[in-house]
């Protein structure tokens, strides 16, 4: 199925339920767009990890703070944006989870997994929260049978 210009967005509470809903929506949209099964898993997992960061680390489950989740089809890209209203993060303080001294840490792998699974991961901290942009290029069947140009 070829992608067309479309955008859908959701405003969600800062709850565990939001994380599951975000994952479900990512799975459904990636499936509808014709991504292969392994890439559907990658996209849904990246969105889940992004939602975890927004709910847990960004908004810290605050009832008055929302998470905005948007899916956009632009040309040969699926662009996913997740925004929170937290205090932002210091990207320089994110340790490398593959470093020997970090291998046995029980957290700190979310952004690494997103970067492993998506073609582009952009994190923009701001005074009003953090904006995470995840991009997956459409290839093969999802691009209507043609390889997407890079």
């Amino acid at each position: 199925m070829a992608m067309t210009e479309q955008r859908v967005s959701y405003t969600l509470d800062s709850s565990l339920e939001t994380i599951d809903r975000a994952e479900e929506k990512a799975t459904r949209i990636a499936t509808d767009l014709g991504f292969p099964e392994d890439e559907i898993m990658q996209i849904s997992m990246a969105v889940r990890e992004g939602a975890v960061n927004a709910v847990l680390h960004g908004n810290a489950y605050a009832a008055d703070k929302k998470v905005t989740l948007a899916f956009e089809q632009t040309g040969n890209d699926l662009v996913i944006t997740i925004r929170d209203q937290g205090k932002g993060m210091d990207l320089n303080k994110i340790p490398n989870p593959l470093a020997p001294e970090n291998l046995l840490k029980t957290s700190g792998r979310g952004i690494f997994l997103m970067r492993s699974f998506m073609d582009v991961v952009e994190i923009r901290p701001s005074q009003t929260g953090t904006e995470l942009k995840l991009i997956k290029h459409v290839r093969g069947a999802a691009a209507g049978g043609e390889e997407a140009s890079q």
Partner: protein
Amino acid sequence: MSMKVASRQVDGVTIVDCSGRITLGEGSVILRDTVRDLLSKGNKKIVLNLAEVNYIDSSGIGELVSAFTTTKNQGGELKLLNLTKKVNDLLQITKLYTVFDVKDDEAAAVKSFK
């Protein structure tokens, strides 16, 4: 599908059959409570059978690491059995495959304990 666990004893080794999802929230808590309960009762040879675990997120990975180190710190051993491809791939890309003792045969896993 949320996570379910069932424990059984085989030649002094506790096999924990896990099924469902190990993710932030209930799944991670169930795994944590199960391992802590086993250790508190003196069961220090533990195999997590993940054959029916179809999904795991970074929190679930962290919980596996926590279970591994908690068991080790109490003088025990925790091994993983029957990884699905998804879980196997995750442990590979996070380099945790080199940390865990991963088995694909239950009898061999049981025998491997000292």
